[in-house]
């Protein structure tokens, strides 16, 4: 194991716009636990939501193009780990799926490389890795040793959503009984609770024009978390975060008795536990203000 993992980092659009707190907390916390994230000098959309039609090769252009940039970083000696680190669950799923497809299908790989004529070919040497997986590799026990402000008595619902667990060959852990997020929660000194809704659908893109669906699903997930003893939910998906956090506004409009619950990016908890400054935690970006809860636990 290298002391310091210096790895190509693919942000995706959301981490540069509405989820800046996800990015800053991951980068700064990463420095403390031996992950140096080097953003791809040039990158484009992850290619989100692969088409389900059979002739969908065009939709894989975006991820493959990003892998080419990661290969270039390796050749230029900008990194010591040639995989690609991703935070956003959606980007992770999309890019890992595309990578798997072209690596296992030389005709598809050739079609895409032929289409990118005049540009550099993808050689198929990049693997996609999620931040959770990288922490597991470093060792959650090792991370626990670096924690300076354990999140004592904080009860956390680990929300996997769909993109980290499905399909099976993309999953970062066992699809039915995952423990990786709970292991992370324990490593920062918080208490992972057991609950039913850890991979229940958040409503995904219905949030654009079918908000009722999302309001009902999000309310069910949050109430399940509360019933199971949780005080906050964590996620690695900006879309889940939006549906579970920001949509609490609409839940409250429908049900004034609804009790709100803070939703964090997991890296925010890591940043707090590592004793980072507020500017690297980005609590202003959270819709339901988590400060009262954190104050109650003497964490800020």
């Amino acid at each position: 194991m290298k002391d310091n993992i210096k790895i190509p980092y693919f942000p995706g659009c959301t981490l540069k716009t509405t989820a800046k707190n996800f990015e800053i907390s991951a980068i700064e916390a990463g420095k403390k636990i031996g992950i140096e994230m080097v953003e791809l000098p040039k990158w484009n959309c992850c290619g989100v939501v692969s088409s389900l039609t059979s002739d969908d090769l065009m939709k894989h252009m975006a991820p493959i193009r990003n892998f080419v940039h990661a290969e270039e970083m390796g050749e230029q000696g900008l990194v010591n780990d040639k995989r690609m680190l991703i935070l956003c669950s959606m980007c992770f799923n999309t890019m890992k799926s595309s990578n798997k497809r072209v690596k296992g299908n030389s005709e598809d790989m050739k079609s895409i490389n032929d289409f990118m004529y005049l540009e550099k070919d993808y050689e198929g040497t990049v693997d996609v890795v999620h931040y959770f997986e990288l922490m597991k590799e470093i060792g959650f026990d090792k991370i626990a040793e670096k924690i300076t402000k354990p999140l004592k008595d904080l009860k956390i619902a680990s929300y996997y959503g769909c993109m980290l667990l499905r399909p099976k060959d993309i999953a970062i852990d066992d699809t039915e009984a995952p423990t990786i997020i709970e292991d992370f929660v324990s490593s920062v000194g918080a208490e992972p609770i057991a609950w039913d809704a850890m991979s229940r659908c958040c409503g995904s893109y219905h949030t654009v024009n079918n908000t009722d669906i999302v309001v009902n699903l999000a309310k069910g997930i949050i109430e399940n978390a509360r019933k199971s003893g949780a005080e906050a939910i964590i996620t690695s998906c900006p879309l889940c975060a939006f549906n579970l956090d920001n949509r609490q506004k609409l839940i409250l409009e429908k049900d004034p008795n609804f009790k709100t619950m803070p939703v964090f990016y997991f890296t925010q908890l890591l940043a707090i536990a590592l004793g980072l400054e507020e500017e690297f935690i980005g609590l202003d970006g959270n819709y339901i203000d988590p400060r009262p809860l954190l104050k109650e636990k003497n964490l800020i």
Partner: protein
Amino acid sequence: MSDTQEMVNVYIMGESYMVPDGSTIIMAFEYAGFQLKKGVGCREGYCGACATVYREKGDYKLKGGLGCQTVVTDEMYIAQIPFVPAEKPIYDIDDLQPDTSTFMELYPSVFRCVSCNTCTKACPQDIQVMDYVQAIIKGDIAGAADISFDCIRCGLCALRCPAEIVQFNVATLAQRLYGKYLSPKNEQLNIRVKEVEEGKYDEEIKNMKNMEDRALKDLYFNREIKIS
């Protein structure tokens, strides 16, 4: 053209014509007897009016370029694109935010980009067109304005885009937002505008209006340029 001029065969809108080797596409059109009222402008590669698509012998790829800058080759097939019908929403720049949400509303097709880079390969100005579309998606409006700076609005990018993005109009919006909200403001400009409004230059302008052509030209070419 001299009698010894080498000639090449080109197909303009499918018809065969012999034109002098070394001609630009616009020159070839005119040599062949076409009178261009649309699809030609400055003839210097600046205005973007003469977007042309063509295919060269032995190459299956459809290419694009400016008619005034692209030299014909033997057996070339040529078609002019005098106008590109393109989506162009009406907006009031004062009501907009210089961020991604503005593009979601006015040009939602931007978010359909599949990163195929066909637009970049179609661009006669060698602009990294896909990169500025992607810059907008990631919220970097100033970057989009910068990358698209040399765009001359020929429209070839939009014609080739499988996601039907209207890149050149999107670039215009990014540049306007940059100019209005994001670019550093120059204090000198306010001072000068105030001077103009207060009539400081009225007398000088009045004199110039009454000058002879020759004298006015001399004044222009001998003017002093201060670079601060």
